[in-house]
Every structure is written in structure tokens, then in C-alpha cells.
């Protein structure tokens, strides 16, 4: 794996390999000494042009537990609007001997640019680019889903997600998590339905490998998992994508009543951070079927696997 920029970069075999490696990584995390020597002497740069404490910490923990040297660079604020800074930062990191860059950026395609503009030769791991993709989030979601569904039904781990029914609910238009999840779940054979008000579904969504619906109540009884997306408050009011928070919650929020529409085994997922009371109620977020905290823990294992395959994959193969 040279870069990980989009969930579409992963073939079915590649995605399953990454999930399997993540299982191995997760097993090591149950040990008393969690640190592995795998990436000793390698330098991973966390380049965060956009605030995201949880993703940054997750990548930091993943790299450190593989014994990599970690440099975290947070460049927030006005520098984001200047393209020069991305290029110049890339050149600087290259000069400092970075082996991989984990990039978070507000511009869609920033990771792609960093990987392919010819600025530097380092491996790039997309940790969220604008409203485009967030592939490690989709991987940790798939990891969590696969684990839980396998616990219940057993069977070949390579096939657990085949035919799994997943609803993704909320602001699909602006969601990098939704885009990566649709692509990855399709690759793994799952059946995805996007549920959102029409204003929050992109023009062109009809060509995506999934179904869409405007009716959450009708969808919930037939799913194995519901992924609730964060709704950003600036999208309403002046943003005009929906009339009010109350109306959104009424029509698309996962509350106690909707929780009970789900089949007994169905999971409740959320990439965080949550707006409790807006897209998800406390009852749903804290219910036994919620995997929200587990997703965070699994994030470290999945990112360890991604870094491992990016930096040590060739040696290991």
C-alpha cells in the first residue's frame, strides 16, 4: 500500500487484509505491554490543518504503539486558506525525513494532492479531507461491525459483512465518513441505504452503489446497523439545509422510539463527536447496542494496521 487516500483504493482482498491485521493489532492491545517494535526508527508526521483532537490522538497512539517516532504538526486557522503552506510543509517534512504523513485538511482532495502533486515522495494517509473521505473511519466502522456481527452469527470473517444491511443517517452531503463508508461497505458486500433530508443528499447520489431514503422509520426495521452522522449546527438556519434543529430531530434523529424499531441485534454507531439531543438521543447513544465507545478503541487498532501496511507492508509481504 503506497498511500491510503480513499476507501476506493482498497480492493476486497486489501480491505480484508487490513481488517485482519487490525484484529492482530487489537489482540496485542489486550496485553500488559502494548508497544510493538514494528516501526522502530520510522517517522510518522501527523499533519493536522484542521482541529480534530480524537483523530489526531488516535493516530498518535497507533504510531507510538508501533514504536514509530511521531511528530505532530497542527496548523490551524488562516494558513489553511493558503495553498502554499501545504506544499511548503510537505517539502519541509520530506527534508526532515518523514516516512509517512497522516493528513487532515479542510480541502477535499488535499491528501490526493500531497500524494500525487510531485511535491514529495512520502506515503500519505488521509485522515479526513474536506467533504471527501475519511477512509480509516470507514475501516474502523467496518471492523466494529464485522466483530459484532461475527460474535452473533459466527462464520467466515471474510464473509460476515456480505449482505449486511447498514443505514447511514444524516448529513451525507457534507460527510466524508458517509462517502468512505459507502465505498468500503460496497467493497465488502454490504447493502447500504442512506437516509437524509433531500437537501443533505448530493446531486449525483443516484449513481452511488447504495440506496437512498427519506423515511427513517421505514428503514430501521430492516437493518443490522444504523450509523448516525454528526449534523453540524451551521447547516441549519442560515445554511438553510433544514428548518430547525427540532424538525431535524423529529424527522431524522435516532431517539428511543426509533431505537425500538430496530431488530434486536442491530447496532447503533456514530463516528463522534455526537450532538446529543440533535441527531442522537442519550437513550440511543448509551444503549447496550451502541458501539460508540468501542469504535474509538477499535480506531487505534485499525490505524496501527494502516500504518503498518503503509510502512512495513512490503517487508512483511
Amino acid at each position: 500500500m503506497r498511500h491510503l487516500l480513499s476507501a476506493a483504493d482498497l480492493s476486497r482482498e486489501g480491505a480484508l487484509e487490513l481488517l485482519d491485521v487490525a484484529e492482530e493489532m487489537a489482540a496485542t492491545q489486550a496485553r500488559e505491554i502494548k508497544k510493538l517494535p514494528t516501526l522502530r526508527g520510522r517517522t510518522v508526521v501527523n499533519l493536522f490543518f484542521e482541529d480534530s483532537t480524537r483523530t489526531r490522538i488516535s493516530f498518535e497512539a497507533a504510531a507510538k504503539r508501533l514504536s514509530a517516532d511521531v511528530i505532530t504538526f497542527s496548523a490551524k486557522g488562516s494558513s489553511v486558506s493558503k495553498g502554499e503552506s501545504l506544499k511548503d510543509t510537505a517539502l519541509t517534512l520530506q527534508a526532515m525525513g518523514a516516512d509517512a504523513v497522516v493528513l487532515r485538511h479542510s480541502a477535499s482532495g488535499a491528501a490526493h494532492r500531497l500524494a500525487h502533486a510531485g511535491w514529495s515522495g512520502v506515503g500519505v494517509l488521509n485522515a479526513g479531507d474536506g467533504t471527501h473521505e475519511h477512509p480509516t473511519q470507514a475501516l474502523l466502522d467496518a471492523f466494529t461491525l464485522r466483530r459484532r456481527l461475527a460474535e452473533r452469527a459466527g462464520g467466515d470473517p471474510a464473509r460476515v459483512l456480505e449482505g449486511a444491511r447498514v443505514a447511514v443517517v444524516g448529513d451525507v452531503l457534507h460527510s466524508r465518513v458517509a462517502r468512505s463508508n459507502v465505498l468500503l461497505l460496497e467493497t465488502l458486500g454490504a447493502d447500504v441505504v442512506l437516509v437524509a433530508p433531500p437537501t443533505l443528499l448530493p446531486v449525483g447520489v443516484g449513481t452511488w452503489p447504495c440506496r437512498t431514503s427519506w423515511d427513517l422509520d421505514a428503514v430501521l426495521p430492516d437493518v443490522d446497523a444504523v450509523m448516525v452522522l454528526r449534523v453540524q449546527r451551521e447547516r441549519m438556519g442560515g445554511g438553510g439545509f433544514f428548518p430547525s434543529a427540532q424538525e431535524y430531530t423529529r424527522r431524522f434523529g435516532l431517539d428511543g422510539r426509533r431505537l425500538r424499531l430496530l431488530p434486536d441485534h442491530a447496532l447503533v454507531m456514530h463516528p463522534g463527536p455526537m450532538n446529543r439531543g440533535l441527531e442522537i438521543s442519550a437513550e440511543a447513544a448509551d444503549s447496550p447496542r451502541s458501539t460508540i465507545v468501542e469504535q474509538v478503541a477499535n480506531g487505534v487498532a485499525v490505524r496501527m494496521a494502516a500504518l503498518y501496511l503503509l510502512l512495513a507492508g512490503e517487508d512483511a509481504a
Partner: protein
Amino acid sequence: MSTTDTPAPTGAAGEGAAPPVLVRRARLLGGEETDLLLAGGRVARTGPGGSLEAPDGARVVEAAGLVALPGLVDLHTHLREPGREDAETVRTGSRAAALGGFTAVHAMANTDPVADTAGVVEQVWRLGREVGLVDVRPVGAVTVGLAGERLAELGAMATSAARVRVFSDDGRCVHDPVLMRRALEYVRSVDGVVAQHAQDPRLTEGAQMHEGVVSSVLGLRGWPAVAEEAVIARDVLLADHVGSRLHVCHVSTAGSVEILRWAKARGVDVTAEVTPHHLLLTDELVRGYDPVYKVNPPLRTRADVEALREAVADGTVDVVATDHAPHPVEDKDCEWAAAAMGMTGLETALSVVQEALVETGLLGWADVARVLSSAPARIGRLEDHGRPLAEGEPAHLVLVDPAARRPVAPEQHATQGRNSPYRGMELPGRVVATVLRGRPVVLDGALVGEQPDDAHLGASRGAPHGAAGAS
């Protein structure tokens, strides 16, 4: 092509002293081989191929196998001067234009300061005259500072030495319907035309690329076709209502073509242009996030490209205009959202037209002369350009080798901009010679007889008599 100079008494390249030129065996508009004798800035004589003798002192241009077209006229060029000389100057843009086969360009008004006064348009016009490679015809802003709030002094620009006839806020849309109506009405008194950049500003806030399948996947804010089409629909109705002439810049969607077709059938006095890139490229290219493909209006779909080609073929779209928009490297060498919009086009336009329209059988060379020369000259009221290559007509012409094929190498372009979307693409056709007012400015695909760049250089070589005082 080969050129030979018969010994001439005068070695000066100044315009007044331009020796006669005999173009031998050029295929006139792609037709019969013809000899053209150019003298005194005009086509002095024409005759069947090989029939004319070179007079004493004449330069002979052997043009067997080459197509002769009237000098090309661009209705839509960004020369960036004044204000962004780091992107382009009148000089570098003129070089690019001449090498692309153009003998006249319309310099857009979105400079800094904006070309919204007689003073600025005269400055641009004068710079063009000093360079002397093409006729630079300034476009005047419709509104003061392109702000869309009140009309600029259109009359003053029209009666200035620059004789502005095309008015445009290009880069911005005159979106206020009352202001647009007044502009359309007002320019009638100067035989002018409003060239509208049709883009509803509210529907395109933060827009990054064509809204459709590709934008949905890439997560780039969509630029809906309706944002262009709605403004064109409004404007053709306004033009009809007040009986004015309207020109629509860079039409990019199949829906816009339908509206224009309807308007023309209804008798509205509307003309429209399409850029070379909208005739060849699609939004699929954006998938790699390379900002060289970022442009306003955005690259659309294959269906739009096909509709635009048909529209040029059937005359719904009148002209091909480059929207040549050079940018410094740093404005494109960044992430998509931070990058500037625009592509260079002067040096590739004719090749793209050949690729998209001639080689597809949609246009013949006479049609190419129409869409790249006579129609834009007529819209811009350039009486001296876009004329037939016939005896007594102005001697503006371009010789094209249609059999040539070459990969596009932006580094070799004369424009300062390296932002050509055709980099590495093999395109047909090569401009071999460009003649402005009887004087070759391009021969063998290279600039000739350019006036010195700097005043001190000029002084050391003697008075540059072709400079400011040229006729």
C-alpha cells in the same frame, strides 16, 4: 514552409517599411492553392497557386500544404495587465496570441485597476500598440470596479482612443436584473454589446466544480448548470424586451444551448461563445484534483461537450473564444479549493478546434474562419479584422499546417502561464505563420520582427520607430 527574402533596399522591420510578402500556394480556407501578394498592409493581388511573381524586395513564403485563414480574433482574453504582471503582460500575451494565429484579441476588463474608465482602456490599448504583434482591443467593465452596483462610464470608453465596443464584468455576473437591463439599453447608443458572464452568484457560492456525479464522489461543492442557464434565460428575455444586442460568454452546458437556440429562433439579437476547453474536456478530469482543470465556468459532462460541438456546427454558438486565463505557478500548485480558476488557451485554441470540430467532420476550414475570425470580429465591431482574404482586404492572415501533430508542452509556450490543461496531449495542427497588416509577426512557428522589450535596449539599437508612434 520556407521563406526567402529577395534583396531589399530597406532592412528595417518597422511597420511603415514592411516589404511586400508573397504567400505561395496556400490553400485558401482549406480549398484551392492560391498565391497572395500582400503589400501596403492589404492583400494586393491573388491568383492561382504558382501564378504570381514576387516583386523586388518581396519576402516569399512557401505555403504548399498549409491552410490560409484570415487572422484569428479572440473575443475573450485575459492579459492581466495592469495589476497582475506576474501572471501575464500585454507583451507576453500578445506573443502568445500571435503564435496562436490571432491578429486581434479582446483584453478583458478584470485587471487591477479595473478597465472601467477611459484612462485604463487607453493604457491597455496603447500597450498593445507598442508591442505591435496583435491588435489589442480592450473590453470595458459594465459596472464600476466590477462591483455590479452602478454603470461604468461606458460612453467615455467607447469614444476613447481604444474605441471600446464590448463591455463585460467577466469573472463576475451582472446579476442585478435592473442593472443588466440598463446596461443593455445604454450600450445601444455606442453600438456596443454587453458580454455577460452568466453565473448566478447565490447558486454558486463556494462552488468548485460542475455539480453532478463526479462532484458527489469528490466532495467538491457543486456548480449547477442551472446557475448559468437561469441567467442566460433571463438575459435573452431582457435583450428581447429592450431590443438590445447581447453576447453570452463561455457557454458551457447543453441547457444553455437549448435556451440560445430558442432565443435565436425567436429573433433575439444574441450571440454566444464557447471556449476550446469546453469543446474537449470534461469534469472526469477533476478526479485527480489537479487544479489545472479548475476553471470558471467549470468543465461539464460529455453530453454537454457533445451539445456544444453541435451548437457550433449549427451556428447556435457563434464563436470560439479562448478565455485565456494565465496564472502564476503558485496559484495552481496547491490544493483544489485554494487554487485560482482558469486555463491558458491562446496557443492551443486552433489545435483544439481542429481536434474537436474539424477532425470530427463538424466544421470545414471556412467554418473555422467564421467562428474564430469573422464572427468574433463582427461582434466586437472590428471592421478591419475577420475579412475575406481577397484583393483590397486587410492583410491579416494565419497559415496553418493541418497535418502536423504535436504534444502540448506548456513550458515552451510564450504566455507566462503554465496552466495549460492539454499538457502532454497530442493535438493536431500547427500555426506556421501569422501576418498582421501585411507584416509577418510569426514565421516558421516563431516570432519575428518583435519590437525591443525595454526602452534602453531600444535606444541602443536606434529609435524604435515602430513603437508608440506606429501608424
